[in-house]
């Protein structure tokens, strides 16, 4: 999967499933501070990654990521 495809899938997930405002979805946006990502959102993100990209993030791994760019990189590196 290309970088662009990863970004598109993540962005769609964030707006459609986590219901974050599209205007705040930027690579430098911070997951907690700018988007308000909760622990439950992080769990949902981990399940989304497992189903979409075929690998299971370790428990708590998503919560260590700071920005959306970190999330893109995490998927690219592990996917």
């Amino acid at each position, binding site marked *: 999967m290309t970088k662009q495809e990863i970004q598109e899938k993540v962005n769609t997930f964030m707006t459609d499933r986590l219901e974050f405002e599209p205007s705040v979805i930027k690579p430098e946006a911070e997951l907690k501070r700018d988007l308000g990502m909760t622990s*439950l959102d992080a769990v*949902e993100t981990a399940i989304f990654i497992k189903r979409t990209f075929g690998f299971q993030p370790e428990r708590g791994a998503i919560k260590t990521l700071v920005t959306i760019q970190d999330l893109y990189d995490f998927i690219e590196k592990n996917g």
Partner: protein
Amino acid sequence: MKRYALITGASRGIGRAIAIELAKDGCSILLNYKSNHAAAEEAKHLIEEAGGEAELMPFDVSQPDAINAALDKWFAAHPDDYIDVLVNNAGIVDDEIMLMMEPEQWHRVIDVNLNSFFYCTRRVIEGMVMNHHGRVVNISSISGQAGFPGQINYAASKSAIIGATKSLAKELAPKRITVNAVAPGVIYSDMQREGIARGIKDRTDEIPMHRMGKPEEVAYLVSFLCSNRADYISGQVIGINGAVL
């Protein structure tokens, strides 16, 4: 898309009545039981007779490995489905006053009645979270609300379920998943019949309505809580006890 409902301890009594009622509501029933295969088959037959459908899902709710194995198998066979309704009903009693109660009696009741809630629910709510919809109904008891002598193990397990219900309801509310507890009083169920047969006092005369409740009456309440009419009801403990409490 089918709406799947897992009911633990559904071969007899209140669990069976709930399974039948939810099947009438259109749910496809995953009917859990531990070992009474004949009773489970009978429950399945009753569900089918009522126009519903059910599949048997035997596992011991006190064994986390057994829970995971059964659910892993089901999820593997249903990759596009999830379980939208979970009724944590399986429960046992093992009554004794505290000074006579063996540690094994304490642990066994806690394992079956309380720890099963943790392991079953944790496994099932993943699908609910992803689908932003779900219903968890935990069967507590008036014993957990009021306490009864000889039931410290049972009362502790059923009281703990209430606290867990309230916490989990708050955790899952953002994903539109409701979590409630139902606290039956004296219900004319297999558990009650067996207790009376063992010599436990029949307390019908202490019930303001002068009768025991019926398993079906508990099932109607669970059915309502699982319906879309109950979207805004979460974190509640609803008694069904003939005005005892």
